[in-house]
């Protein structure tokens, strides 16, 4: 089992490394960091621009391979991701933002996975009944909604609710209320209130996808002989479904989870932007808008590491669920 997980981990690690390096090459070919200085008035001299770009390590006159090599050597020897176009370190910028994104991502993914599995199993067990139809059409509708539309619709609903109640029950702009006085608990509740809508938005998107997949995986399992055997041994229907049904149906889900995680990351980035959170999603969008190669590569590396962790975790779950892997 350890061998299996280590093998998968190495596979993911190589993939993440190649993804990051190719993102660097691609960004170097497309983005033009010099454009930021050419538009200034008075225009800085070419020598000045070259010096600035050399200092950042993004001068287009240096061959891409050489820049890539310097970037990689810096990362390995000094653990540095270079500097942003504003002369701050990419690592410190990312450290300030990562917590914001991770809070949203971890909560949203866990809630999505739990609800997706429960709804999928429920729909499969009650196939073609009203609840199954309602869950199916509901998840189709959510899957057909872009994440930014879902976020804004939730905002409209929250505003209506606030107006109806007459108090600011749900606040949704930004990550916390600026200039809020009070103790630890006041701040905690403020952040929790701000977290509510983005998390619901992200969790709804995830749960809709997972529930469709879980439902069809569960339907495959339900007609299997071992469920009937478990029933004939004297297990109750519920116990047979959970111990023998859900456990087996979760195995293909763990693979699906690893593959869909990149989509979740993109959805989280969009959600952050819609709710004006200063997280990694905003960091990545701004990096592209400002032609900041180092910042973009840093953000891609962050995402690649998250995919690496999610992929390895789902393999651990796979190995724990499927005894054939362990022998």
């Amino acid at each position: 089992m350890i061998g299996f997980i280590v093998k998968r981990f190495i596979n993911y690690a190589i993939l993440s490394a190649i993804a990051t390096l190719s993102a660097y090459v691609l960004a170097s070919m497309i983005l033009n960091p010099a454009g930021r200085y050419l538009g200034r008035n008075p225009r800085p001299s070419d020598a000045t621009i070259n010096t600035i770009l050399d200092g950042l390590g993004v001068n287009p006159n240096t061959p891409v391979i050489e820049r890539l090599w310097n970037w990689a050597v810096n990362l390995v020897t000094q653990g540095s991701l270079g500097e942003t176009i504003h002369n701050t370190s990419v690592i410190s910028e990312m450290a300030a933002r990562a917590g914001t994104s991770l809070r949203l991502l971890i909560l949203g993914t866990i809630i999505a996975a739990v609800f997706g599995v429960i709804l999928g199993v429920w729909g499969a067990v009650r196939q073609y009944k009203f609840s199954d139809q309602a869950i199916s059409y509901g998840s189709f509708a959510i899957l057909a909604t872009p994440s930014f539309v879902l976020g804004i619709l939730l905002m409209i609903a929250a505003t209506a609710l606030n107006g109806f109640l007459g108090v600011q029950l749900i606040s949704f702009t930004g990550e916390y209320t600026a200039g809020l006085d009070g103790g630890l608990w006041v701040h905690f509740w403020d952040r929790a209130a701000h977290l509510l809508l983005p998390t619901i938005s992200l969790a709804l998107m995830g749960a809709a996808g997972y529930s469709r997949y879980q439902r069809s995986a569960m339907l495959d399992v339900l007609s299997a002989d071992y469920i009937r055997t478990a029933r004939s041994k004297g297990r109750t229907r519920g116990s047979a479904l959970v111990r023998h049904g859900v456990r087996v149906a979760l195995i293909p889900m763990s693979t699906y989870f690893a593959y869909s995680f990149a989509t979740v990351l993109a959805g989280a980035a969009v959600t952050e932007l819609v709710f004006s959170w200063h997280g990694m999603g905003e960091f990545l969008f701004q990096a592209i808008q400002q032609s900041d190669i180092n910042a973009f590569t840093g953000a891609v590396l962050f995402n690649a590491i998250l995919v690496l962790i999610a992929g390895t975790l789902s393999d651990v779950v796979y190995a724990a669920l499927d005894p054939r892997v362990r022998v």
Partner: protein
Amino acid sequence: MSMLEEIPVSNNGVPEPEIAQASKPVSRMRLVLSRLRSTPRFWVGVIGLGAVILWAAFGLIPNQWNYTDLDVYSMGSSPNSVHWFGTSDIGEDIYAQTIVGLRKSLVIGLLVGPIAAIIAGIVGAVAGYLGGWWDRTIIWFIDLLLVLPSLFLFILLSPIFKSLSWVALIFLLAGFGWMIMARVIRAQTMSLRERDFIKAARFMGVDTWTIIRRHVLPNVSSLLIIDATLGVGGAILSETTLSFFGFGIQAPDVSLGTLLASGQGAAVTRPWLFIFPAAILVFTVLSASLVGDALRDAVDPTSGVNRD
């Protein structure tokens, strides 16, 4: 004796049920079509999609405003009998804008879905049929794009595509929409490769490209049709998301994404600027994905969703 008793006794007098007719094999096409016809989801999707397409084509005719017209006497008005979906703060008719935006989004979706499916078919069939280094390289490339969210690549590439027309966006979206399906096609091709009719063609000296075109692709065509249908909704979602953040369709052109972006700021105070285009968008994508899902169930009953 017990053996004899188990032989079914033919009941005299009662006519035999006409089993002989049922033994005639039903063609696959007719089987799929009859399964489709009995799926309510398919009808909901087809009628919805047809209505949206007809509305996009002819919806402007009864409306007295064009999408570039500015009605300076009613700026920022709510929906009324003159402006069915209301107007924006500079007097643009939201109904006309929604239809023009819908046209663009529909054209992009209806083109990107099939193009991506064709790429998926060719790449997957080549990888699965040739095997070896070709296969490994293509699978690595696909895995790479699955690690790197394609949205981020779209945004990175957008400076190039912004300077071109919106048609370039179609190729961008199609160029990144084929990966997951290509893996499925590859797996299917690998099992097809060992079948007798393909082996026979190979031993007769038919060249690789002809075998892929004549024997492999027709055998995975049902998968490709499903993928093309599901791809329509996916492409519209990608396009609107990109346009919403200003990376997709650019200023003089209107799509549902740019329309939603301009309505976003007023979504809470003047919801008609946002709600109507958003509802049309969700309805379109929902219809397309219902058709795709029903097709998948009809073609592949073992996918579980269609089992009684």
